[in-house]
């Protein structure tokens, strides 16, 4: 296929040769193009995820890396591999390095909050992605977790609430108890469930993103409440364990499992296998595009770090057996 790429160049050369003295036509738009490309070239962006190696962070990183290579700013990943400790060290060294922009994926609401303020004081712009800290910084791009929780809980109320003819018993599977996603979703769950007298919360346990734990909890809950109607969980990669427990008990038709996730093909596969019923997807490819847009905006903006604080809550889509199609589920290879 190389010759195809070379073709336009060859044609151009041919044209130039034949019309050697052709005048320039059209406009070069340097008013916009120059500051855009010049302003981005050589800038330094650093990304601190929870960890690499899982669908969300790999997806975002693939999209961000592509744009960085295209526009000529550097993009580095400091992978703390699920250790908040290592993350803290990474951020401390980032403060000394003074990149133009740091992209932070917060393991919980508190741990990095202080450090993020210090980064801003040091003149580094901070973009928080999908999991926020208590302190707002220059930008937050990610899901509105309260809304995710509301959608999840309402979907479950529809299945198990008043008039559904079920036991109304639901179980909550938390993720990391102190993470933004968990606390905001939890508010939404209790808020919605509290409004329907038919709903009974029979368990509220943390599975800490671990499918094995989700499975063990679900098994025990099912023993206590064989008439369980639904489970609402924090993350599809975790709640697949709950789905496995429900399937093993032969109750896939009785127990409705609602969760949220990045909309990757693994999640879709799990819906297809009948392990999960509904995933509220925050759509990683879309979040990647939003991140790229925010990166450019922050790098080009003359505003100082911490001067303007913006938020973009990325759109949510609902994935069920009826709505998923190969097009709506992404794989990493597509993003690279």
């Amino acid at each position, binding site marked *: 296929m190389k010759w195809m790429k070379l073709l336009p160049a060859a044609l151009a050369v041919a044209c130039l040769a034949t019309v050697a003295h052709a005048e320039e036509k059209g406009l070069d738009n340097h008013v916009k193009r120059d500051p855009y490309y010049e302003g981005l070239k050589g800038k330094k962006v650093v990304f601190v995820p929870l*960890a690499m*190696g*899982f*669908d969300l962070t*790999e997806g975002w990183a693939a999209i961000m890396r592509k744009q960085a290579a295209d526009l000529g700013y550097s993009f580095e990943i400091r992978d703390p*591999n*699920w*250790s908040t400790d290592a993350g803290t060290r990474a951020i401390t060294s980032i403060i000394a390095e003074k990149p133009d922009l740091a992209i932070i994926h917060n393991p919980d609401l508190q741990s990095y909050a202080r450090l993020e303020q210090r980064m801003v004081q040091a003149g580094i712009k901070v973009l928080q992605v999908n999991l926020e800290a208590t302190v707002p910084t220059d930008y937050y791009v990610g899901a509105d977790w309260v809304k995710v929780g509301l959608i999840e809980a309402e979907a479950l109320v529809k299945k198990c609430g008043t008039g559904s003819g079920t036991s109304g018993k639901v179980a909550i599977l*938390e993720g990391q*108890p102190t993470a933004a996603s968990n606390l905001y979703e939890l508010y939404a769950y209790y808020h919605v469930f509290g409004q329907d007298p038919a709903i009974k919360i*029979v*368990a*509220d*346990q*943390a599975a*800490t*993103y*671990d*499918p*094995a734990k989700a*499975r*063990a*909890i679900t*098994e*025990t*809950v*099912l*023993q*206590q409440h064989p008439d369980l109607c639904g489970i609402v969980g924090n993350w599809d*990669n975790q709640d*697949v*364990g709950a*789905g*496995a427990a429900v399937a*093993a008990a032969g109750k896939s038709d009785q127990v409705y499992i609602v969760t949220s996730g990045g909309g990757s093909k*693994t999640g879709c*596969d*799990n819906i*297809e*296998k009948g*392990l999960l019923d509904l995933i509220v997807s925050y759509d990683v490819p879309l979040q990647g595009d939003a991140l790229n847009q925010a990166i450019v905006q922050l790098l080009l903006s003359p505003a100082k770090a911490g001067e303007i604080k913006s938020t973009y809550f990325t759109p949510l889509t609902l994935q069920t057996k009826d709505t998923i199609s190969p097009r709506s589920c992404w794989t*990493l290879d597509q993003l690279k």
Partner: protein
Amino acid sequence: MFLLALVLFVIFAVTLDRFLTAGNLVALVRSVAILGILGLGMGLVVIGRGIDLAMVATMVVSVSWSLALADTGLPLGTALLIGLVFAIVVGLASGILIAYATIPAIFTTLAMGLIVYGSGRAWLFQVDVQNTPASSEFFDFLARATIFGVPMMIVAFAALALLVWALLKWTRFGRFVYATGDNPSAARVAGIPTRLLVVAQYVITAIIAYLAGLIMAAANSGMSTRVYNSTMIYDVLLVVVLGGIGLSGGRGGVRNVLVGTLLVGILLNGMTIFDIAYTQQNLIKSVILLIAIIIDSIVNPRDEQTAQQEQGDI
């Protein structure tokens, strides 16, 4: 420890409505079956005065690699065989370093765990959760099949426990393990091939880790390599120590692993039924474990003479 497990069991049985149903008891054992299987392997090396901190890494990486290979289209059988060979190689490497290079087991296996996990993440698979193949009879069988109402996970745990028990009790290998664990120098003088024995122990432990991984993958419809970052390896050690296998080697057996496993299982199951919050669960778990260790040290005081001897590696 057996007593403590019994006491907890009775308390839960009396206070909780559906604790004592067959279904719940099966769920209870199933939730700790993996821990128990890993405990069997760990118990074996600890009796031989060693320790294997690479077990969880071996489990996670060998099975994840198998699943990743199967995902690329390799026949499942071949992929699983490659995983098994990988686990054996890891066990061999640990064993040889410990036995022949005489590097303390705790450091060797700590490093080995990091190496195995690191190389797995770097080269063997990209994503940290590997799903089992969508329609695999093998994994479905492990996950769903039952024998007289008992799920395969528990059957596998029981079978492995029986195997390790027989190995320790009825074979020369077993008696040699106890002998080296009790007093390595004496065992060597007595003509026991201690170095080979150590290598064999780590290989067996690695194979047990791989089998535990297969069952875990079947149970959760996939393998999450994040397990390596959890406290699982310490939980495995706890099962062993709680059960009453002394870290100084030479004492204990499969019975102790079973008791330790059940104690942890009863505790976790009861707390989930009570719907106790996560942080409080951790607190209760640690307090009970501390009490257990205190009781253990009162009931089984440390033997001054063996304690002062060449202390093994811990």
